[in-house]
Each structure stands twice: as C-alpha cells, then as structure tokens.
C-alpha cells in the first residue's frame, strides 16, 4: 500500500512527472529560443511561471458554466497522469499493464483535447468558442492517423499491451526499424495534439487572442498549462516506448538515462518543427492530415499487416 502510494504520488508518479514535465518545458523553450537566436529563459522559468500563476486570482466569467469551467483543468491533468502509468519507461514493463492498455492510453490522451473543447465552449466567450470549435475540428484530423500509426507496430508485435509490445521489440530490435513512417506520423500528430506551431490554430494569438484559454487565469490556467506539459512528456514517452524500444538491458539507472535521452530527442524534434514552420489555416491543416498524414499511416499499417502475415507463416 505504502509502496503503491509512493509510486503514485512521488516516483514515478505525480511529483516526478511534475518536475520532469516542467524541466522538459524548459528544454523546449530554451531550444526554441536558441534556434531563433534568442537567449531564452533560465532553467527555473517554468517553475516560476507555475508558482506565480498559482498565486493569482481565479476569474470565472459571469456567463460561464462555473462548475465545468473549474473542473476541466483537473480532468485534463488527471487523464494525462493516469496515461503515464501504463507506458513502459526505463524497463520493458510499465508500472501497470494489462492486455489492451494501448487502447486505454490512446483514449486517455484524447481526453485533454476534449476538455480543451469543453472548457472553451463553457467559457461562452467568442474567442474561446471559436478556439473550441477549432480544437475539435483539428482532433478529427490528427487523431485517426495517430491511432493508425501506433496500432501498426502493435499489429507487428501481435499484442494490445504496451508492455508486451516493448518486450517483443526488445527481443527483435530489427523490426523496430520498419516503423519509421509511423514514427514520423506520430510526431506530426503529437504536435497537433499539443496544439503547437504549425498546428496551434485553436489558440492562434493573432486571430483569436488566447483561443480556448482566453478566459482562464490563475490556478486554473496553471493546471491547464501543467496538463499540457505533462501531455507533451507522456506523448513523447509513448512514442519512445512504441517506436524507440532500445536500451532496456542496462539496469535501472542506465535505463532511466536512456529514457530521458529518448524523450529529449523527441522534444527537440518537436521544438525544431515549430521553429521552422508557420501556422497553417484550419482547412489547410485538415487537408494536410487527410491527404498526406493519414495515407502515410495507412501505408505503415499495410506494411505491418503484410509483414506480420509473412512472420507468422
């Protein structure tokens, strides 16, 4: 019991995730800044931001649905933290696992997006509502390619459990190289999920002010930002577990270092993506996702389908 609580709250649970996510936010911001020829923030900036926001007043708009408005950030946070426990990190075995946890993780990672939509919608502000609609429109564009990209490796491993999948690729490392298309698709979809350039359409500052989060302030905004940071880490961990299943045989400390390096690489790739691209329009984003990203994911699925047939025969 005590050990379970320690796992949940301290390590690798909430506290670790909190520190790790904010540290990754710093890495992302610093990298983004350096790529843009700026100095960038000091290492404690995300923590300082979090503390400062937490100390500020929460303002709930008069016409907003107060309960939904307050609940949504908590929901978003709970969903991403839960998803984290099912992802294998430094060993091939996740903290919790069961057959089919892959599907659960993908669904848990959809919840934050839905809370963004509901939060924006229940703010009843014009800018929030437009942001909310855009969030949902975008969800339909990247979610299906993301599903397909992550299911394809599972198909090859012939399991619906993330941990079992990692065990499979740990034993057959060569097969992991076959999932490159899926890796790229998953990266693009994750960028869309995190609503960052070029897919930051739901919160495009120059068009709709703060988008979904226009009306949020204080602790509630701090929770939302934390949820997004954790979502980034969880998403990166998921991609790392599915597409980069290497280096599990180095013991706890070595495995941990390799895990952090993998997450760092993915965060760096995402930062690079948002440095070199401009924001797309919503219809351009949807067209891009359906005409380029989805077919690519489909191709990966097809390759793995044929391969798994060959393998098993």
């Amino acid at each position: 019991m005590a050990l379970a609580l320690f796992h949940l709250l301290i390590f690798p649970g909430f506290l670790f995730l909190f520190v790790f996510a904010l540290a990754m936010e710093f890495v992302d911001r610093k990298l983004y800044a350096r790529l843009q020829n700026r100095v960038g923030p000091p290492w404690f900036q995300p923590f300082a931001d979090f503390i400062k926001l937490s100390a500020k007043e929460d303002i709930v708009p008069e016409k907003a649905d107060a309960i939904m408005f307050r609940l949504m950030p908590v929901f978003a946070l709970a969903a991403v933290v839960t998803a984290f426990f099912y992802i294998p990190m430094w060993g091939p075995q996740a903290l919790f696992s069961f057959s089919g946890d892959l599907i659960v993780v993908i669904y848990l990672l959809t919840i934050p997006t839905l809370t963004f939509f509901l939060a924006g919608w229940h703010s009843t502000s014009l800018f929030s509502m437009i942001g909310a609609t855009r969030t949902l429109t975008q969800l339909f564009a990247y979610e299906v390619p993301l599903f397909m990209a992550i299911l394809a490796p599972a198909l090859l491993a012939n399991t619906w459990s993330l941990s079992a999948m990692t065990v499979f690729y740990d034993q057959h490392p060569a097969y992991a190289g076959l999932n490159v298309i899926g890796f790229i698709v998953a990266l693009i979809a994750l960028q869309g999920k995190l609503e960052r350039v070029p897919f930051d359409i739901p919160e495009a500052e120059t068009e709709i002010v703060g988008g979904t989060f226009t009306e949020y302030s204080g602790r509630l905004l701090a929770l939302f930002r934390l949820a997004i940071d954790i979502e980034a880490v969880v998403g990166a961990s998921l991609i790392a577990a599915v597409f980069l299943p290497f280096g599990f045989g180095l013991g706890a400390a070595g495995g941990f270092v390799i895990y952090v390096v993998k997450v760092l690489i993915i965060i760096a790739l995402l930062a690079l993506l948002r440095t070199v691209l401009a924001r797309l329009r919503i219809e351009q984003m949807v067209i891009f996702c359906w005409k380029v990203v989805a077919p690519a994911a489909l191709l990966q699925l097809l390759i793995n389908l044929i391969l798994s047939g060959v393998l098993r025969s």
Partner: protein
Amino acid sequence: MANVKIPIGPQHPALKEPESFTITLNGETIISMDVRLGYNHRGIEKACEERNYIQAMYLVERVCGICSHSHSTCFIQAVEEIAGLAVPPRAQYIRTIIAELERIHSHLLWLGVAGHEIGFDTLLMYAWRDREAVMDTLAALTGNRVNYGINTIGGVRRDISPEQLAGLLKTMDVLEERTKYYIEVASQEITLIKRLSGVGYLAHEDAVKLGAVGPTARASAVDRDIRRDDPYIAYKDLDFKVITDTHNDVYGRTLVRVGELMQCYNMIRQLVAKIPDGPVTVKAPRKIPAGEAFSRYEAPRGEDVHYVKANGTDKAERVKIRAPTLANLQSVAKMMENNRLADVPIIIAAIDPCFSCTDRMVRIHDAGHGRQETLSWQALHTYSLDWHRKQGIDFKALNAKLSRRMKL
C-alpha cells in the same frame, strides 16, 4: 454555425495600435468587415497651427514612430518650397540616406510582424535581429533610433563623417547577405507560401480605383513610386528600379518589400559614392512668407502627402497631413472578401498599417473616477515634473550638479 461578429480591436494581439475592425463570420469565412478609426486622433494638424515652424517640424516628426523622417522631410520640403530656400546638395544626400535607412528598418520590421501574424515567430526573431543593425546605424548617424531629428529648415543638423560612410557600406553588405537569405526563405518555405499566396487578393483595377499606395499598390502591378515619378531630395541622381509584382496578394506584397530592400542597399551605395562636399545647412528665416506648397514623399508604407499654407508669420496657417495608411485602408475591405478568419491578421498587416499616422489636445480621461480635464501644454509639463519629483526623481538637483561640474 450562424453568423458571428468578432471584434478585432480596439485592443487585440494582432494590432499594435488601437483601431477597431468588426468582422462578421460564417463559420471561418469572412462575410463583411466594418472599420472604426480615430482612436489615435491627437489633433496634430491643429497643434501645428499654434507652433512655429521649427516646433511644428518636431511635432510632425512624431506623427509616426516608424516613418518619422518621412513626415518631417515631407513637411519641411513644403516649408522650404514656400520660403524659396535652396537646400545644399550635401544636406539633400544626407536626408536621402536617412530616408532609405528608414525604409530598410521599416521593411524589416514589417517582415517580422508578418511572420508573427501567421504564427512564424522564427522569422520575427530573425528579421528583428537584423533590423538592429539598421537601428544602430541610425543611432550612430543621427543620435536616435527613432524620431531622428536630423532635419532642420534649410538643411540637416548633423554632418556624416567619412568613417561613418565607410561603416554604412559594411552594414549594407551584411544586410544584403541576410536579405538574400529571406528571399530564399520566401521562395522555398512551404507553410509560408501556403499562408501568403492567394490571401488578401486585390485586383489591379481595384487597387487603382481604391487609391492604394506604396508596396500595397505595387504588388497589384500599379507602377507608382513618388521617388521616380515626382523626385524629391536626391532621388533624381539615383539609379533604381521600382519593384512591382503581379501576384496581387499578400505574397506579392512580401516580394515587393523584400525586393525594395535590395534596391535600398544599392541606393545607399550610390549615395555614399556620390555624396558632394559642402555645407549641410543654409540659414532659414524665422518667418515664412505667405504662400502654399504641396509636398509628396514615398514613405516605406506608400505615398505620404503634406500641404502647408503660410501666412507670413512664424506659424503655419494650415498644415494638412495624409499618411499612407489612410489611403490603403480603403482597399482592406476589398481584400477581406472570401477570406478566412485566420487570414485577417496578415491581411491587415500586409498594408503595413500605421494607425497613429492615420489619425492625427491633450485630453485626460479618467474613466474610473469619471474625472476629466483638459490640460494646457504648460500644465502638462509641470504635472510631469511634479510626478517625477513625487517618485523621488528630482531633475532640479541633478541639473544643478551637472552645471556645476561643467563649470569646473
């Protein structure tokens, strides 16, 4: 989704100055747009009538923070024409150098803002970093990064040394290299091209009919540039190309501005090579004889127009200013047709709007207390001194100390 009215402004992240655009949307598509201007009206035209010409010149320079040299040059050109002053050629060249540096700084500023409006912040950071080189050059030549104050009636207030001219050439080489890189980015970066092409379409006929000016007009193939058509200061001695484009959209406006940057570097090289020796100012009378003059100037944003009427005293009878943005705003409603909400910021930004210029009493508005008073210039001056004194900043003691030190 039914039609929604979205307010862009008076306060909005996309706008750097207060103006109000109300946009009616169906889903994401723009149906119509309504503009309300005037938030920045400062009564400068009236204020010019109450000041002598030198004071008015400095006031006019503050019509705009970016094209300040444009306004002050345009204004004194008219005054000098009425007074019949022959401005020395070296002064004309110095004015032209500052004018072109100002264009470089303004276009680089625009490039950054355009990048920001379409969510391409890297372009903003790069362009503004390079813009610093121009700002530093301007500060070295004139003493100020903006509102240079280099003009005076009858010439310029500072000469440029040969070393400064040599430094200027070096800066141009650096900037030319950087601009070539931006041209490469503009022609290769896919998301940038996707966000800019076909957006804010303004047909050639509409540009002519709606009186568009500057890069906005030239991107719709309107071949109009005051520097060539109605040459002023030293432009008649220069060899340059007027950049036009047939894209008719925001992408075309970008290409025109980047192309103009390349011309600017060339023009500054010519100016440095050709600058004549001689005095930089002639003595100007305090009272300007009765008369009127109409002066045009190709500001970075387009044709700037000043009309001055003198009545024989040291104060102008009437000063009329028409900044380029007012001429271009008429086209914005046309450009918005059939575009999407996401394109609103870049369409507005693409005319390089400067609303302070457009709207031209010191009036205190204390909405919280319902208190309202109009302060005279003198009262405002005293108020400012008192306010600083209350904050513990007393310039009296400092001034005394400084003057004592000067004597020693």
